[in-house]
C-alpha cells in the first residue's frame, strides 16, 4: 500500500464520534422484538478464539440457548447495545444461556482498547478474516441470532436491542430444554 501505514494512531473514541454523528442518539425505544426464524434452519458451526485465548465451538453448546451477536467497534448501534447485553449476561449466565459476541474483522488490540470504554464480561470472539460471518445470513451489523438447544436458529434481531428487557429474555429462557 503506497504511502499508508497499516494503522494510524487515530483514537478509538474519535473514530466513534466521527462515525456515529449521533445518528442513532435520542431514538425513542421501540418494542424489543425477536423475529422467529421459521423452519429448522441449522446454525452454521464455527470455531473461534476469544480475546482471552479460549476456543469456542458453537456445537459444544448444544443443549443450551446461545445468543450470537455479530458486531464491530466502529458500528454505532453495536456499541449502543453492548451495555444492555452485559446486563443481560449477568442476569442469564447462571440460567443455562450462553452469550457470544463475534467481532468482525478487527484484532485483539483494537478490541482491547475499545473495551476500556465498553467493558463486557461475556466472551468476545474474533472473526478477523470475516469467514464466519459470511456463513451466516447476516446483511448488516449488528445482527443477533438466538440458537435453540437443538442447534436451529430460533430468533433473529437486526439492529440493536435492549437485551436486558424482561420480555425479550423470557423468550430466550423459554427455549431451554
Amino acid at each position: 500500500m503506497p504511502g499508508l501505514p497499516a494503522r494510524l494512531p487515530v483514537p478509538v473514541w474519535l473514530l466513534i464520534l466521527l462515525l456515529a454523528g449521533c445518528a442513532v442518539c435520542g431514538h425513542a425505544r421501540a418494542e424489543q422484538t425477536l423475529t422467529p426464524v421459521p423452519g429448522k434452519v441449522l446454525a452454521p458451526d464455527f470455531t473461534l478464539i476469544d480475546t482471552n485465548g479460549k476456543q469456542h465451538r458453537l456445537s459444544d453448546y448444544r443443549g443450551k440457548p446461545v445468543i450470537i451477536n455479530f458486531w464491530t467497534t466502529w458500528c454505532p448501534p453495536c456499541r449502543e447495545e453492548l451495555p444492555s447485553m452485559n446486563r443481560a449476561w449477568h442476569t442469564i449466565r447462571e440460567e443455562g444461556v450462553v452469550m457470544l459476541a463475534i467481532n468482525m474483522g478487527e484484532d485483539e488490540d483494537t478490541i482491547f482498547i475499545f473495551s476500556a470504554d465498553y467493558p463486557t464480561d461475556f466472551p468476545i470472539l474474533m472473526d478477523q478474516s470475516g469467514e464466519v460471518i459470511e456463513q451466516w445470513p447476516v446483511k448488516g451489523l449488528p445482527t443477533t441470532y438466538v440458537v435453540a438447544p437443538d442447534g436451529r436458529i430460533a430468533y433473529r434481531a437486526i439492529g440493536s436491542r435492549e437485551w436486558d428487557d424482561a420480555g425479550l429474555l423470557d423468550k430466550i429462557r423459554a427455549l431451554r430444554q
Partner: protein
Amino acid sequence: MALLVLPALGTAGVKRSTNEENGLKKWHFTDSIIAIELVQRLPDQTRALLMNHNFSREVIEQMALSCMFQTIIRNTGESSGDNRLSIDLSDWRMQFAGKEGPVMMKEPLLDSWSDTDADAAARLVVRWGMFPSQQDYQPGDYNWGLTAYGIPPGSRFDLQVTWQENGVLHQGTIKNIECAPDVDKLK
C-alpha cells in the same frame, strides 16, 4: 412480475433538521411502517475512517468525495401485524443536475478495486460499513450504514426511495438533499 407502485400519501413526511453541535444536516422520512434517516457525512469523516485501514490514497479520496450519508432504515410497524418491510437500494433513484440515476452500490465498488486499492481487511470495512443493498426487516428491526451518491461535496439532489410492504411496492421522494461540503468550504 409487475408490481403495483403506491406513492407515499397521507402519512408520508420529511423533516429536515440541523445538529447544532456539529452543523450536520439530517433528513428524516417516514411513511406507514418505514422511517429513513439520512445524516450528512463530512468527507473528512470518511477520510478518518478509511485512513485507519489499508486503502490507497485514490480510493480514500474517491470515497470521501462521493457524497455519503449515515443512513438508518427502520421498520416501525407493529409486531402484532403482518408488517414485513423490504428494501432494495438498486431500485432507488436520484435526480441531480436534471438527470436521473442510481445510487452507488457497494458490490460494483468493491469489484472495481485491485488488491493495491484495498486489502482484504479494508474491504471488510466497506462490505460491512455501507448500507446493505437488499434486506427484509421485521417490526423492530433496523439497519444502519453509509449510502453514497457519487456527486461532488455540496451538491443538492432529490432522492426517490422505494420499499415493499408485504410485497406491495411503495415510493416517496426526499427533495433537496444536500451533500456535506468538503473541508475547504467550511467556515
